[in-house]
C-alpha cells in the first residue's frame, strides 16, 4: 500500500478538525491559518467526566515537523496538568505509549483521544490537579 504523503495527511486531519467530524471531546486545528507548512497546531481536550479533569478544558501545542507522520508529533500541554506521562514543562514524554510505539496510521486525533483516555484511567483520574487556568 502506498503511503500518504505528509501534506495530504495533514490536510485531511485539518479538514476533519475544522468540520468537527471526529469525536466531540477533543478539537484541533492549525495555530495560524496561514501556516502553509501545517507544522504548528493547537489542540484541546475536554476533561473526561467522573475524574478530577471533569469540566476542564486542556489546551495543547502540537508540532508536526517534516518527519511527521513517520515520527510522532511533539505534544506539549499549555494548561497545567498532573499526569505521569507529562513532564514538568508540560511536554508529553516518550513514556506515553502512543508516542513511544508510534504508527504511521496514527493521527493527532489518536494522540488527543489517547491522552484523554489516560486522564480517565483508574490510576490517574483521582490525581490532584493544579488550579484550573494555570499554564506552563
Amino acid at each position: 500500500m502506498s503511503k500518504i504523503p505528509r501534506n495530504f495527511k495533514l490536510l485531511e486531519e485539518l479538514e476533519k478538525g475544522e468540520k468537527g467530524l471526529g469525536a466531540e471531546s477533543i478539537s484541533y486545528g492549525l495555530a495560524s491559518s496561514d501556516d502553509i507548512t501545517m507544522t504548528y497546531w493547537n489542540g484541546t481536550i475536554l476533561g473526561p467526566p467522573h475524574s478530577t479533569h471533569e469540566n476542564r478544558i486542556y489546551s495543547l501545542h502540537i508540532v508536526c515537523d517534516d518527519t511527521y507522520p513517520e515520527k510522532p508529533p511533539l505534544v506539549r500541554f499549555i494548561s497545567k496538568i498532573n499526569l505521569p506521562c507529562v513532564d514538568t514543562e508540560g511536554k508529553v514524554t516518550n513514556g506515553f505509549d502512543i508516542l513511544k510505539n508510534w504508527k504511521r496510521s496514527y493521527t493527532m486525533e489518536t494522540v488527543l483521544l489517547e491522552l484523554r483516555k489516560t486522564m480517565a484511567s483508574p490510576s490517574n483520574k483521582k490525581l490532584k490537579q493544579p488550579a484550573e487556568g494555570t499554564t506552563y
Partner: protein
Amino acid sequence: MSTDKISIHIKGSGSAKYDFEIDPTITVLELKELISEPASVTSDCQRLIYSGKVLKDTETIASYKVQSGHTIHLVKRNASAASASAPGTATASNTTGAATTNTSETNNNVPSNIAAGVGAFNPMADLTGARYAGFGAHLPQFDASMFNDADPDQITNMMSNPQFQQSLNAMLDNPQMLDYMINLNPQLRAMGPQVREYFQSPMARQLLTNPEAMRSMMSLQRALGGGAGGAGGASAFPAPGNTTASEDTTSSGAQANAGSAQANPFASLGSLFPPAGGFDFPSASPAAPADTRPPEERFETQLGQLNDMGFYDFDQNVAALRRTGGSVQGAIEYLLNNP
C-alpha cells in the same frame, strides 16, 4: 459595510447540533447569545472551542478564521455531574435525612419527577439525565430483586467483572453515597451509624468484592434455607463483622438485622439500591455505574472502524452502536437503513 454571512455548525454534547447563519464580524459573546436560546444554556455557561482554541468573548468570529461549513464545539460550564464527582463534602449531615442542601437543585439534569424526599444528595440524579437516556434499554436489569432471586452463578459472574468491582469500591469509598443508600432503606437507617462503619470496614469490603467469599456465603445460605438462613448464617459463618455485631447483643431485633446484613451481603446490598418505583429509570439507575464511560471511549474501536468505512457522523454512529450493543456490523446495517 456588508460582509457575506457564513454558515457554521455548533456541536454540543450528545446529539445536540445547531446551525447558524452568522456575520463573521460579530464577537464570540454575541454568538454565544445566539446559541443560548436554542441550546438553552446562558452565554456565561458556554465555552466555545474551534480548531483547538477556546474562543474569547471579546474577539470576533472572523479573527479566528472560522470558515463557512466549519464546526464549533460547545461545552457547557455547568457542573452537570458535580454530585457524582464531589465526594467528601457534607457527609454527616446527610444521615439525618434533612433535605436542605441543594446538590440536585443546581443540577440542570435533574428531572422534576424523581421521587420527592429522597434526600439532599442524590447520586442517581445524573443517571437520569438525557445523556444516559439510551442506556436503559441495553443494560442488563440490575435491581434489588436480582440480588434475591438471581442465579448465584450469574451474580458471581457479575462480581468477577472488574468494572463492577471498581464501581462497587468507588461506591464504598464515597461516604455520601453510603449515607444516601442507608437513608433509602429504613432497615439500615434504624441501625444507626454502625452500618456505615460496617460498610466502610475493610472486612465488609473484602466480603462484598470477593466473588469467592460471595459464592461460599450464598451456598451456605441456600443450605440453611432461604431467609431464615440469613440470620442463622451469621453464627455459622465466621462472623465477618464481629466488632459491630457484639455491640448489639442486647437488642435482639437489631441483632438479627445486623446478622443478616453481615451474613448475606446481597440482601443488604440489594435493598441498598433504591426501590424500583422511586425512579423514572429503574433499570438504568443501579445499572449505570457498570459503565458510565462516555460513548467515544466505550465504542472507541468500533467508532474508529465506522470512521474508516466512511461513516463520519459521530452522533449517528454512537446512536447506532448503542442500539446494537456495540456491534459494528449491526451498526452499519442500521446506518444504511436509516440514513
